[in-house]
């Protein structure tokens, strides 16, 4: 036998419903005059909080060398299989002996989960705060190594959206 446990016994007032209805109406009415949260997007831009997972970037060392060593850990961790890397022995004398000759991300497949960032042993791939990168074609949303490095240049020193838009 199941026991019915009533956590709440409605009072007579509750059973009338009308006062509750009015309460509800008053609540929404009050909210009508509250401050609006809408951001008028193209005119003003939302600055995402720290830790926002937007467009990827590939980091560089201060001397300009790409950090990525093409270990493909990001590709292995990627649940959407959107990262495609072609590794090659690096042309540099010093440092890590492997680098990506191609590094493509299919942004249409990407789910921006950030696993790649977590899997990266070299802190090479990171997700930036950039969220508006829509395009008119599928090809346009296939970002390559040059593109990812460019994103790094755009975001390495400051937040993308706090920079005055002068492009």
């Amino acid at each position, binding site marked *: 036998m199941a026991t019915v446990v009533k956590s709440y016994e409605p009072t007579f007032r509750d059973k009338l419903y009308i006062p509750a209805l009015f309460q509800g109406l008053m609540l929404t009415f009050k909210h009508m005059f509250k401050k609006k949260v809408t951001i008028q997007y193209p005119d003003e831009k939302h600055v995402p909080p720290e830790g926002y997972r937007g467009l990827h970037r590939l980091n560089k060392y201060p001397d300009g060398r790409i950090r990525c*060593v*093409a*270990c*493909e*850990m990001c590709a*292995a961790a990627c649940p959407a299989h959107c990262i495609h890397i072609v*590794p*090659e*022995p690096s042309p540099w004398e010093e440092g*890590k*002996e*492997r680098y990506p000759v191609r590094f493509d991300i299919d942004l249409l497949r990407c789910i921006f989960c950030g696993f790649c960032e977590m899997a990266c*042993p*070299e802190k090479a791939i990171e997700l930036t705060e950039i969220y508006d990168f829509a395009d008119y074609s599928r090809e346009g949303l296939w970002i390559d190594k040059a593109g990812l490095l460019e994103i790094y240049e755009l975001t390495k020193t400051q937040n993308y959206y706090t920079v005055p838009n002068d492009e």
Partner: protein
Amino acid sequence: MPLIKIDDREIEVEKGITVLQAATAEGIEIPYYCYHPALSIVGSCRMCLVEIEGMPKLQVSCNTSIGELPPERKKDGKYDMIVRTQTEIVKRERENVLEFLLLNHPLDCPVCDQAGECFLQDYSYKYGRAHSRFLEEKRVRKNEYLGSNVIINHNRCIMCTRCVRFTREISGTNELFVQARGDNSKISIFEDKSLDNLLAGNVIDICPVGALLSTDYIHKNRFWNLEEKKSICTDCSVGCNILVYSQNNRIFRINARENHSVNGYFICDIGRYGFHRYEDAEKVTSPLIRSDGGFKPISWEGALKEIYEQFSRSKDGEKHQIVGIASPFHTNESLFMFGRLMDNIFKDKSIIGKLPFIEDYEIHFDSGFRISKDRSPNRQGLLDFCLNLEDEILQKVKTGKVRLCYALDDGVDRKLDEEWESFFKSQRFLVVQTYAMTPLAKLAHLILPGPSPMEREGTMTNDQGRIQWLKPSVSLTNKTRPDWEIIMEFMNTVGKRELKYSSVNEVNLEMGERFPSYRGMTFFKIGYQGLPKKNIATSRPSEGGQAGNTVT
């Protein structure tokens, strides 16, 4: 048979085998680095230490052989040995050894080709401790070339000396040695030598870490991206068992596969790097017909129709009008079909021969490993299935009036001598079944696209009469078809048969019906290790319903 106990399991083992072998056979994992079944035991990595009852110290299980105790000294009344692999002491010991091994290891797994199949990774994960207590600078050394195909990364080396022992005991070439001692010791090569023997690639296979690397594969891919297929090598008549690693229908590397009846643990570098030849070859992807001095693509239907017209026109009673050129590079199934075509469809009108072999010298290693002088994988099968094979075919056809020829091409690495070239040129109609634009294919009037050796499926008979299954490593592309299917279409078209084999297995079954020594040699039976051919005399089989000697 001694009865031993490993952890909780009672195992009856052969006398004289080591604890490590017994445990591995039973599926109990004991980690090890320096031990390799084909090499001598040095016991230097100290990873396989186990606790054995009655022994004061931990014992290296790779060097502890199991003997029989007299009845009164049996442990617990019945065991000859009691081994414990999971006690606290053993676990601590593994942890400690791993800590030592990792002291100077660069931990550069992200750039290491071994990552994913590395025993240092696996064991660290399973048995190691998570943190390093080593505060000093790690020892750093430069990479070196040991041979044209092998690079050593000294930083990753754990000094198991498998490679050194390999060059001493298996290849017998002694290129490698350990230089300096103690912490300074490193694998090195004698100044006047380079690691370029034909077995050199195996040191990469047997290296348990990423110290020895193949220049052919370095930084090309990651292990987990690769698809592993079990196949056999077709570069000589030994028929070594191999593992082919590919991604997206592209082969990246070939490793040895263990088969003690054929190649043991190793393969030669000819087979290991042989797949590159097929990458560079100009592929034939569609039936081609000669027109205006060149070739133009044609549909399969068109090609078969052309064949029918050309071959039925020749039925004017002349003897030996049609020549079939068989190839020892093809599978038994294809050769069986080809033999049937020549023997039964064209009957008396046909003769069948083969291209001459370009013989190489046979290579033997001290360890017994050999590279056969017969560099074709399936001459045995050719002899078995093309029964009236003429060796001196060129002499014979010179006098005859052969104007029609159907040739199975040997492949990209075979040249054509002038005599044969003029023979082929004299043909009124030459059909060549090939996968690439070889010199022979260039002379053809019609080219039928077959699979490359990496795409073929079927059985091969090696020079010791062992039948092994050749599994395709990559799949057929474009308009190419399996060899046996092309020949079947040929038979259906020219010989008006209605053969409808849907897979190579059906051809295999039919082949077994007709050739008793191949009876039952299906993939399910021979598996990945192969079986020796049955020793039954074969008489000439014929198509069912025809007069002639039938095969029982």
